[in-house]
């Protein structure tokens, strides 16, 4: 999917000039990547397709102001993330469950309540087959929404803390705390598969 820089500069010039064929090239080159981003965030095929379409509408509008310092792919990736988040926000909100039960507990003296086993040598099994990968994705889906989203943005879509904070409209500190909790909680969920009992 990597387009050489020279071609990208030409494409950008053609886009700014409003050439029809350039828009089609842009859509054909990047829409697949954008659809997978929207699918990961929305977990719903119809909404993901809508989000891609909405993302391109904002991209077409923004192409004149696109600074050209970032790669087109990176810029579109960000727009797809934003379009997906907008869709998420428009969903009917259920009251969010607490993540506390999934976080490691500690005794007075600072020791963990559960002695963790090292199941990391078996961890590759988690991603070996489609079925096990589905299990992992299912665990991610079990995270309360605000935590799931931060984990996706930071660890899967690879936004940095400041970028994630910006698209979510929260502070860097909030992103860090949510990411931290989301990772611990996901670990708890995966550990259960290896016989480590969940904390209570």
């Amino acid at each position, binding site marked *: 999917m990597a387009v050489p820089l020279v071609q990208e500069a030409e494409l950008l010039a053609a886009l700014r000039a409003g050439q029809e064929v350039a828009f*089609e090239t842009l*859509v054909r080159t990047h829409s697949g990547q954008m659809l997978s981003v929207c699918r990961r965030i929305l977990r719903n095929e119809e909404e993901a397709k809508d989000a891609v379409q909405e993302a391109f*509408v904002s991209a077409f*509008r923004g192409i004149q102001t696109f600074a050209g310092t970032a790669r087109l792919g990176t810029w579109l990736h960000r727009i797809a993330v934003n379009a997906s988040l907008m869709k998420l926000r428009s969903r009917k909100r259920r009251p969010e469950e607490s993540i506390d039960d999934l976080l490691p507990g500690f005794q007075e003296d600072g*020791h963990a309540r559960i002695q963790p086993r*090292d199941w990391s040598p078996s961890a590759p099994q988690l991603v070996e087959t489609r079925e*096990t990968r589905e299990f992992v994705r299912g665990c*991610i889906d079990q995270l309360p929404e605000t935590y799931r989203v931060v984990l996706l943005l930071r660890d899967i879509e690879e936004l940095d803390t400041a970028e994630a904070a910006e698209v979510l409209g929260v502070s860097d500190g909030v992103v860090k705390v949510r990411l931290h909790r989301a990772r611990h909680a*996901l670990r708890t969920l995966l550990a259960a598969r290896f016989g480590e009992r969940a904390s209570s």
Partner: protein
Amino acid sequence: MMSCREVYGFLDEFLESRLDDLTKVAFAAHLLLCPACRNYLATYRATLLAAREAEWADCPPTEIPEELIAAILASRTAAVQNAGDHQC
């Protein structure tokens, strides 16, 4: 001595090499003496890798349906025409 609880709290900073020197030393010393935290660190890392792999593997940049491409391009044409209308 750093507690296990503190070690858990510093995991992200550790993984991103953002611990200051003093904390780094205390963190390493704790890990050396505490197999439980070593286990936790190893599985914490494994969790992050598994999440990434699971999300990326079955969701590659795919062929996109022609109807969607057509719809996207049509929405641009509509937007251009609308903009044109306003200019008149």
